[in-house]
């Protein structure tokens, strides 16, 4: 085993880890030894081939990490850049009302506001112009407005976007301003070491054990050879996300000191639903996400956003088979799409655990409230599609999933799409927004870290990722994760003399 000594190691390179790395770059420039350990490979943008089956490489479990009951699949990155490689750059600030609900002492919306502003500038967050509005987005807006649903623009962190439409398979030109394009190169130039293919298996006081694997073909090799290493550091920052950070702490026996460790997971359960428009609209061209509606955010609790996906994922989302699937997929270029993101409650029973092989398991059950929200959202989405001019819609939870207005026989969609016909494990429910597991809070009975991401009672251990969220963020989380990581970094810089001593 090789022993290596650092001042700071950061485990994970996504929105949280990448941000900490860039914020601490100044320390690296001053001579501190800092490294980012990433379990996945380091792919350059040239690796992104825009083909679904090939780009499963970017994801943990090919993008389908299943919940233990199989009813939900979670999609998150496993590569340098984490999930910022395959997100769409959708940029939301944590709503003030949600920050209040979180009720974390020492974390205020006014503190977050200045950080949001700073990050938005650094990440080139823009309001997309009219030229970025493809047919799916235009029709969503028109449909919503016709039936009195308000629509807002989604802000995006992109620069010189060529609107190729393959954001979720990695940006082939690196124009999406995720950590692979922005923070990690900046950190690396300042002297922060990026160590890919480095899976941390055990955490001890001020050291971790990790296995470095061979770089897969097509990826950039790291500086270290294959083998088992122990990385010693004065400060360890966990940024492996809800699954990664929770699982590492669970494996390292932290549960006995932190009873809520791994618990209170939320994940914005999501379903994508479709309308069939009478003319070809080719929604995979152009930028997939421009508009959203938050009209139903308080009750029943969901957002509607525009979306579009490639053929396989579309077929999966349609939740049809047989002639109906063929019928809908033969009209692939006529499909409109809306993604439903449900605000789920943080419940203690929804948690990350370990199986007998010490591998992470996502124990999550869709609540009745979430199921009701999905049904209501599908009813509203069908109204939007019909108002936009679609002849038929595909709503997986409907009595008849592929239906036209005529099939409703004068009924409202709300009575056609009910929890009675929402059958878990039949519905294609997915998530890309895992949150919680190492929640912030007052003390170790109700949380794992304080409001600065420092693990209670462990001055050498910080967390900087979505696992800090005490409840759902209600919105796409990357910017909030970066903001919390910014706070972690600020605290580390402010206390540097103490921990360096």
């Amino acid at each position, binding site marked *: 085993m090789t022993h290596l000594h650092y001042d700071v190691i950061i485990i994970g390179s996504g929105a949280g880890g990448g941000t900490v790395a860039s914020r601490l770059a100044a320390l690296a420039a001053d001579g501190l030894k800092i490294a980012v350990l990433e379990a996945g490979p380091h792919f350059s943008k040239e690796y992104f081939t825009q083909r679904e089956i090939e780009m499963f490489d970017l994801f943990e479990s090919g993008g389908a990490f299943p919940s233990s009951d199989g009813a939900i699949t979670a999609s998150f990155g496993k590569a340098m850049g984490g999930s910022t490689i395959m997100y769409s750059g959708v940029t939301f600030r944590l709503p003030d009302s949600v920050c209040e609900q979180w009720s974390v002492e020492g974390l205020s919306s006014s503190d977050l506001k200045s950080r949001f502003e700073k990050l938005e500038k650094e990440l080139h967050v823009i309001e997309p112009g009219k030229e970025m509005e493809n047919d799916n987005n235009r029709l969503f807006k028109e449909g919503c407005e016709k039936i009195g649903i308000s629509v807002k623009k989604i802000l995006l962190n992109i620069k010189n976007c060529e609107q190729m439409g393959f954001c979720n398979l990695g940006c082939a030109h690196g124009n999406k301003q995720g950590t692979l394009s922005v923070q990690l190169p900046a950190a690396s130039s300042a002297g922060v070491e990026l160590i890919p293919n480095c899976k941390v298996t055990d955490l001890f006081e001020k050291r971790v054990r990790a296995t470095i694997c061979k770089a897969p073909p097509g990826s950039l090799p790291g500086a270290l050879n294959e083998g088992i290493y122990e990385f010693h550091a004065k400060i360890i920052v966990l940024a492996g996300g809800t699954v990664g950070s929770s699982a590492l702490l669970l494996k390292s026996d932290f549960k006995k000191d932190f009873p809520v460790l791994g618990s209170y997971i939320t994940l914005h359960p999501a379903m994508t639903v479709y309308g069939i428009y009478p003319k070809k609209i080719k929604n995979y061209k152009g930028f997939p996400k421009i508009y959203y509606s938050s009209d139903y955010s308080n009750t029943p609790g969901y957002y509607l956003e525009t979306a579009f996906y490639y053929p*396989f994922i579309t077929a999966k989302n349609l939740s049809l088979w047989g002639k109906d699937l063929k019928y809908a997929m033969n009209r692939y270029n006529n499909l409109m799409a809306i993604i439903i993101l449900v605000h789920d409650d943080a419940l203690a029973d929804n948690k990350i655990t370990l199986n007998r092989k010490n591998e992470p398991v996502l124990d999550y059950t869709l609540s009745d409230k979430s199921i009701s929200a999905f049904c209501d959202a599908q009813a509203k989405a069908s109204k939007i599609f019909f108002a936009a001019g679609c002849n038929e819609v595909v709503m997986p939870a409907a009595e008849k999933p592929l239906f036209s207005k005529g099939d409703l026989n004068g009924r409202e969609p709300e009575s056609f799409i009910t929890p009675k016909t929402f059958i878990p494990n039949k519905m294609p429910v997915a998530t890309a927004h895992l949150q919680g597991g190492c929640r912030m809070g007052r003390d170790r009975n109700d949380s794992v870290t304080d409001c600065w991401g420092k693990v209670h009672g462990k001055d050498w251990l910080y967390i900087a990722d979505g696992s800090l969220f005490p409840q759902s963020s209600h919105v796409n989380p990357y910017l909030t994760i970066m903001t919390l990581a910014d706070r972690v970094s600020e605290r580390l810089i402010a206390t540097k003399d103490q921990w360096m001593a």
Partner: protein
Amino acid sequence: MPKLSKIYRLKYLKKNRLLTFFSVADRVIPADTNSPGGGSMETAAVVDWYMKRVPENIRKKILLFLDVIQFTGLFFGGNFFSSNNIQAQERQLKWMENNKIRLFRMGFFGIKTFIEMGYYTREDIWSAISYDGPVLPGRTYSDSTIRELCQNTLKISE
């Protein structure tokens, strides 16, 4: 048609399982005038290639569920699934999809998803649904086999 010299040999979908796969895939994605059905060597080969990459426990469950489908066919049409008529096969799959027992629903969802992946990542199917594919089609991938399978330029055998 160019002569295909390289061969992809199926590793997981073989013999009876391959027969079951063909039958299930043809029910999930039936042939129509626009495009072929899902039950073909081309679809099976893409699925087979991907199976090597999924965790062993998931692969085993998927393969086992194919056996479950084949044997459960006896209760729906008197024969193994692959020998039953189309109506019996559809009745059985609907029964599994909506079953009160979660394992049947999970199994069907899993198999269906693999079939959709195997079928809709094929480039000949892209043209059938008028999907243009990548904007940068010339980019190479580290494993040429899957590209060749999706482009139907490999000979496939059991």
